[in-house]
């Protein structure tokens, strides 16, 4: 019997052979993802498909994260000469097809200070054909994992210090270990790609650009926990992501990475794709389980934790796609290599969804410990039109707003700033004078109120009262006692709510009252 590594080598070399037939041709990559489609990438791709000469071949990739450059085309000549064309129109694509030697200047500063582990190859390799991923050493981590015992795989991940990237930053290895030791069969694995958090769009990027990396990480994690059935749960609106994952799952079955006897190891894993139906709270893991079981979107009491009693009361591991994307790297390169990235306390990288008032918005991946200043200025290119930065909303509606004076705050798993600002799933929105900090806080608070599922009283009653009080203050009819009320409500909601949504819903208020005290004080008459 041949080992998983040998079986994989076979599959990889067949993929390389198929790639070689294109060696004499010019490679034209068009980046098509949910974002670029909204600015015409589909038309660009179809124009290229119709007009490219025989001497070139077309690759449909996901996005490389540079939203501001979409739609984007990368051309590589057979000699290895590369050019990048940004913000292209279908017309331009037609012209380019006629003259593939057209030169272009490209500014790389968006990419220069990034460190890409999960997003490596994103936007460069095909997201609809598995060959590109295989040719770039894809699924090697899986082959290596399958030669080890599940306990050894968990040990490797434990040594790497990998923490979940969904917002809670729980050590991934501990979660897997918990589920593998838990009593009860069958065990389940759930990929949580619900991603319903405003300001965050990284999981879609991963699903649309490197779907196979997520699957590879998922299979490794499932093997480590002893799971034979996995559910890939995708947000209701992310149709393109779902179709790319569906395609990737089919290819994984066809190449022996899923199904029975994976890579000849005897391990078996089946995957089913499920769709959500909207709602921020669905990303909360116990709510997601309720959704899968056909109940209302309401969280469950914890404990028991899903690792002990999750889906249909069986031990269940729930991981975010971003977490899983680090796993193949850890297995292939070893845990030390992963530990070398980031800080002593927090290893690895974090994908940040950068938007708002920045010249270069998009999805960026930086080592843990990078400062907000580096993210906003070095990568994001600073505020739009040199406007004055008035604040930074970090981590979506469940975190908080930092003033420009706190830009040297470093990103870290969990708490970023002692004022209670958390990284969450990694949203960074730069604010300028076009939207006041108070309006921002109100908007975050009203989102939380709208999305509250209503199961527990503190959140159901508290979040709308926060909005009412803010409205009163902003309208100029508030009094000083309203400020105390706000502080009190934020505290109650944080302390007494059932799930993460409510527990974090006070964040924007607490951080706002701390850092923007004078703005709040100006709202009351005396």
């Amino acid at each position, binding site marked *: 019997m041949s080992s998983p590594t040998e079986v994989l080598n076979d599959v990889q070399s067949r993929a390389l052979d198929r790639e070689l037939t294109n060696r004499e041709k010019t490679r034209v990559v068009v980046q098509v993802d949910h974002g670029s489609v909204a600015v015409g990438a589909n038309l660009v791709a179809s124009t290229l498909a119709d007009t490219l000469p025989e001497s070139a071949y077309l690759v449909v990739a996901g996005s490389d994260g540079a939203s501001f450059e979409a739609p984007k085309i990368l051309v590589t000549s057979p000699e290895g000469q590369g050019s990048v064309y940004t913000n292209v129109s279908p017309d331009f694509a037609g012209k380019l097809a006629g003259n593939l030697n057209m030169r272009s200047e490209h500014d790389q500063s968006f990419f220069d200070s990034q460190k890409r582990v999960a997003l490596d190859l994103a936007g460069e390799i095909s997201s609809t054909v598995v060959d590109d991923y295989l040719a770039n050493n894809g699924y090697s981590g899986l082959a290596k994992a399958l030669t080890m015992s599940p306990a050894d795989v968990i040990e490797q991940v434990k040594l790497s210090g990998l923490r979940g990237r969904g917002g809670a930053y729980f050590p991934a290895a501990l979660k897997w270990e918990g589920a593998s030791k838990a009593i009860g069969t069958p065990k389940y694995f759930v990929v949580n790609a619900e991603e319903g958090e405003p300001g965050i769009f990284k999981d879609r990027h991963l699903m649309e650009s490197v779907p196979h990396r997520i699957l590879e990480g998922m299979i490794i994690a499932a093997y480590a926990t002893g799971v034979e059935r996995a559910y890939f749960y995708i947000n209701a609106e992310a149709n393109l992501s779902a179709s790319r994952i569906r395609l990737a799952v089919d290819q994984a079955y066809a190449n022996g990475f899923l199904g029975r006897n994976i890579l000849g190891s005897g391990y078996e894993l089946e995957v089913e794709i*499920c769709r959500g139906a*909207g709602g*921020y709270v669905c990303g909360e893991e116990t709510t997601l389980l309720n959704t899968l079981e056909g109940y209302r979107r309401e969280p469950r009491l914890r404990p028991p934790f899903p690792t002990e009693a999750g889906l249909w009361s069986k031990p269940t591991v729930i991981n975010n796609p971003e977490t899983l994307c680090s796993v193949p790297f850890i297995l292939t390169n070893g845990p030390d290599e992963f530990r070398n990235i980031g800080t002593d306390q927090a290893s690895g990288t974090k994908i940040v969804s950068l938007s708002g008032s920045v010249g270069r918005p998009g999805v960026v991946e930086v080592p843990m410990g990078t400062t907000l200043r580096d993210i906003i200025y070095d990568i994001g290119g600073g505020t739009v039109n040199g406007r004055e930065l008035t604040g930074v909303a970090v981590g979506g509606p469940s975190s908080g707003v930092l003033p420009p004076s706190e830009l040297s705050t470093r990103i870290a798993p969990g708490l970023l700033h002692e004022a209670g600002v958390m990284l969450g799933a990694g949203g960074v929105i730069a604010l300028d004078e076009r939207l006041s900090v108070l309006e921002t806080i109100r*908007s975050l608070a009203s989102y939380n109120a709208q999305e509250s599922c209503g199961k527990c009283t503190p959140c159901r009653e508290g979040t709308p009262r926060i909005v009412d009080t803010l409205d009163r203050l902003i309208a100029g009819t508030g009094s000083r006692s309203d400020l105390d009320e706000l502080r009190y409500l934020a505290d109650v909601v944080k302390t007494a709510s059932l799930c993460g949504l409510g527990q974090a819903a006070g964040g924007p208020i607490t951080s706002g009252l701390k850092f923007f005290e004078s703005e709040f004080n100006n709202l009351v008459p005396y």
Partner: protein
Amino acid sequence: MVISDRNTLRAELRKEFPRDRGQLLPALHFLQHEFGYLPDWGMEVVSWHLGIPASEVYGAATSYTELRIRRPGEHVLRVCRGISCTLNGADELYDSASGYLFSNSTEADGTECVTLEEVGCAYMCGLAPVIEWDHQLIGRATVASIDQLLPEVSDR
């Protein structure tokens, strides 16, 4: 095939969905895909088929933001009101659309031609402001993009 009565719907559900509680959301998605929303009678059929009380089907249907229990207009225009979109002018887009629809859109029978909605986030913050027209997202939207879309459908 057009599903118009309970029996055909029930036959379709029987074909597509095993009788298992976990099939509730897939079945509701199917219903919404067929009709554009979840008609009361359709939810009742789902409840029979899956053996879940109709009240619980309704409870679930109304708890998810992407499921509709009211028939939307022929077209649905959504404007993202996330922070990045608001920062980049979403208010202006919304006002322009609602202003236009206020003076132009109601049809003689009282149904809306265009349903205007706000969304908390369209998850494309890098391309703000974002609007969505009949499930097609449009990034870097301007008032001009709305002016282009609306007259085509409402000047009839």
